[in-house]
């Protein structure tokens, strides 16, 4: 399967075509899922096969890691085990451990490629690169996509564009899997744009409403801004490394064969792409608006998969970012700062939203910021682990929100919900489980991945990243608090909407329970070894650490190996999460604390307004930047037109007229009668001659053009 991984994106691509061509004929346009769901099921199985294939491959190369407390010692000794003799670029083994460990083999990524097209001697290849990172993403994407396909059968039933919806769901899956498996950066760009297009199409699925089509346009346009950065960054990388291949670029960046300034420029440009696609400050504004799309789409594209494309890209080209931002040596860097700040500011915005999906959208931005921060502090494994767990519980939350809306007459406004826990027990239970996982409550998935990020921030490099640690802990508290608020408004209190809410059918609650199971158990994928040994799981419980880490670069990036967990930090994080829940619990359930603060305090009201207006970023973009650019440019063009061009034209015309008049008055009139006739006809001829040039006849202009060319050619042949 590792060799034939191209089948994984190919199948949903074919299903896209099949649905597009035949979908309308199945059950009167309501049966597209008969194609979409089975194909995705096959893709899911294939992805699972790829995951186990990769695990076997790693096990075959490296002796199986011994279970127990020795794992970390072996990992530490394995720090110097890169420098594979088979690799074209032999890594410079730095330090004595590298020299001693010698050339122990590590699992190479499985690359299969063919020439796609070639131009002027450069071959552009297309193919698949399968390694631990890509199989992790394959599993995440195919799992969530399959569940969303199943969920949508019920959710989108009866929609007039049912076929279209399933076609683009398949298209998105194909594009995302293609992107994940890309073997070179050209392919990455193509996949990146394809997922952007499918996101655009699906956000605007109900385009009859102006808001929806505006949201789709906004998402597309905002992403274009970042795409410029992507193109620039990839071009820099190509010219720096002389190749499009991801492994070559990575090895050259890791071994210091590319100048640091180039890497910094490339990393900076690519960070702009991360900002737009993964919703980082200040280009995150499209993501909350993208909630205009159908809820399953939000779960799949805008929570679990597409928005992590930026995180994935950073992880894939990690040596570039690592060296470019000097992650291993400096105490602060752009990536960590960007992620930490985004995590904080989005969490603050989540408090003032009334739309349940927008709360989740800001929560997604916040968690993406967490991942970017983790990559920024060098905690690669923790970032990928968090990507994995976040996909499970955030998809569960979104699908739960969809279920709530499905039950209560298609509203997402939490003010029209309330009390739903009695009528929707399944949705309520799964939603609470996923919220607790998101909040990071022991022992659910989010707790483990969040803890690893915090450990990374604490022990990142020599002195840790205190600011990032602060952001991380603060966001942990805020996340727990705003999720508790959502649960209060949605499921507790009295029902404030109209009609009778009811539990959703099994096609909706089934995926919810599967994802909730993932949210509970997802942490088992990468437990800290100290914990894993206690409960007797041993090596099986840190799959990502063992199989996904790019050990080929380990001698360079010592932070890849997970830092030893800290009990104190874990307890602090847990205490903050529980504290957040408790604070909101007291506030809403027990009616304690300062209610009506916004009515009483001016500052609180101002802060609230500031948050409700989303830091005025949208005003900045449309009101100030767009209008600011559009207005002055138009005015400047108008001014130039009026004052410069018109004046020149007028001047030329007037001077020609003045010349004629001057010739007429001074030469014709002023000269004695005897010469009048000859000279006046001469002046007239001059005027006529000047007019002839401005005849407006193409052929006269052509004659002048070719005549001038002939004259010039004659001059050149004579001179040279």
């Amino acid at each position, binding site marked *: 399967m590792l060799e034939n991984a191209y089948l994984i994106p190919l199948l949903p691509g074919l299903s896209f075509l099949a649905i597009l061509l035949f979908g309308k004929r199945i059950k009167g346009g309501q049966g597209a899922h008969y194609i979409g769901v089975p194909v995705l099921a096959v893709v899911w199985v294939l992805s699972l096969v790829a995951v186990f294939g990769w695990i076997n491959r790693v096990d075959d190369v490296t002796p199986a890691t011994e279970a127990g407390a020795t794992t970390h010692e072996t990992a530490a000794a394995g720090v110097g085990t890169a420098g594979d003799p088979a690799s074209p670029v032999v890594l410079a083994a730095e330090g004595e451990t590298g020299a001693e460990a010698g050339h122990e083999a590590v699992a190479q990524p499985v690359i299969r490629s063919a020439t796609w*097209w070639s*131009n*002027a001697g450069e071959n552009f290849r297309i193919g698949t690169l399968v390694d631990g990172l890509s199989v992790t993403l394959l599993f995440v994407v195919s799992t969530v996509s399959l569940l969303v396909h199943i969920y949508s059968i019920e959710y989108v039933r009866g929609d007039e564009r049912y076929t279209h919806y399933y076609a683009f769901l398949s298209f998105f899956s194909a594009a995302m899997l293609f992107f994940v498996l890309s073997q070179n950066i050209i392919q990455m760009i193509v996949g990146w744009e394809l997922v952007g297009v499918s996101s655009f199409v699906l956000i605007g699925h109900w385009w009859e409403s102006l808001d929806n089509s505006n949201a789709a346009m906004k998402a597309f346009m905002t992403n274009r801004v970042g795409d410029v950065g992507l193109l620039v960054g990839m071009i820099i990388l190509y010219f720096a490394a002389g190749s499009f291949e991801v492994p070559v670029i990575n090895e050259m960046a890791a071994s210091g064969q590319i100048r640091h300034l180039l890497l910094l420029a490339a990393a900076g440009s690519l960070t702009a792409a991360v900002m737009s696609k993964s919703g980082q400050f200040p280009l995150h504004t499209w993501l909350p608006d993208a909630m205009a799309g159908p809820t399953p789409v939000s779960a799949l594209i805008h929570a679990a998969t597409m928005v992590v494309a930026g995180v994935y890209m950073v992880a894939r080209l990690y040596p570039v970012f690592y060296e470019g931002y000097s992650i291993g040596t400096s105490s602060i860097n752009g990536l960590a700062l960007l992620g930490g700040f985004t995590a904080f500011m989005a969490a603050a915005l989540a408090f003032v939203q009334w739309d349940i999906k927008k709360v989740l959208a800001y929560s997604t931005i916040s968690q993406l910021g967490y991942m970017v921060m983790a990559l920024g502090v060098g905690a690669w494994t923790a970032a990928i682990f968090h990507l994995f767990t976040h996909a499970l519980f955030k998809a569960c939350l979104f699908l739960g929100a969809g279920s709530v809306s499905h039950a209560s007459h298609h509203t997402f406004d939490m003010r029209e919900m309330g009390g739903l826990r009695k009528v929707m027990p399944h949705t309520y239970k799964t939603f609470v489980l996923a919220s607790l996982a998101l909040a990071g409550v022991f022992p659910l998935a989010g707790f483990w991945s969040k803890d690893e990020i915090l450990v990374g921030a604490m022990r990142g490099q020599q002195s840790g990243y205190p600011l990032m640690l602060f952001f991380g802990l603060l966001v942990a508290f805020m996340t727990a608090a705003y999720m508790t608020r959502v649960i209060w408004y949605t499921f507790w209190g009295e029902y404030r909407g109209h009609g009778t809410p009811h539990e959703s059918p099994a096609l909706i609650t089934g995926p919810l329970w599967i994802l909730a199971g993932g949210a509970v158990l997802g942490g088992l994928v990468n437990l800290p070894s100290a914990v894993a040994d206690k409960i007797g799981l041993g090596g099986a419980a840190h799959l990502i650490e063992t199989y996904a880490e790019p050990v080929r670069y380990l001698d360079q990036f010592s932070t890849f190996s997970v830092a030893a967990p800290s009990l104190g930090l874990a307890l602090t994080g847990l205490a903050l999460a529980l504290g957040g829940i408790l604070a909101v619990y007291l506030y809403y359930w027990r009616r304690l604390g300062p209610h009506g603060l916004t009515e009483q305090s001016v500052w609180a009201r101002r802060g609230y307004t500031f948050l409700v207006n989303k830091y005025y970023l949208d005003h900045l973009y449309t009101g100030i930047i767009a209008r600011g650019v559009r207005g002055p440019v138009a005015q400047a063009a108008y001014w130039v037109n009026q004052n410069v061009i018109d004046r020149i034209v007028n001047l030329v015309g007037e001077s020609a007229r003045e010349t004629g008049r001057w010739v007429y008055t001074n030469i014709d009139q002023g000269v004695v009668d005897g010469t009048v006739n000859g000279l006046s006809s001469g002046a007239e001829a001059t005027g006529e001659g000047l007019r002839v040039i401005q005849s407006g006849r193409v052929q*006269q202009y052509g*004659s002048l053009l*070719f005549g001038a060319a*002939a004259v010039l*050619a004659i001059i050149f*042949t004579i001179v040279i």
Partner: protein
Amino acid sequence: MVAQNIAFAFIASIVALSAVRTVTTRNIVHAALYLVAVLAGLGALYVMLTAEFVATTQFLVYIGAVMVLFLFGIMLTRAPLGHLDDLTGKQWPVALGVATALAAVLVYALVDAFHAAELPRNPVIYRTADVGDSVFSTYLIPFEAVSVLLLAALIGAVVLARKD
């Protein structure tokens, strides 16, 4: 070699004479037919220059498609058929002067530069397969650019000529 030169002289004189008639004849349809003669003669010359695929394309695209377009253009603009005296404008002496001057300087420059340089007697022959390889590998991006241009021209022509 003699046969080649004779063939060249024959074809070249047809091409040159037909070209002159194309731009001087007083009948529009005749002009189009003279243009066919020019294009066909050039196709033959392309074969002499070992460019078989270009010659084929010349026949297919130019004589087949472009000429039909021209005839349609003549019909659709209801050009009066038969002899017309006003097909050539009043400024033809200027045009003739410019063209002659240009021809003189070009011929002088060519003779000056190439004297009696010969084409290689055993030239490298590129078959259609080689042309195809080259177009789809070395010149792929120009090829794509041309195809986009053709698409744009197609859409542009439809938009311009549509009645509404």
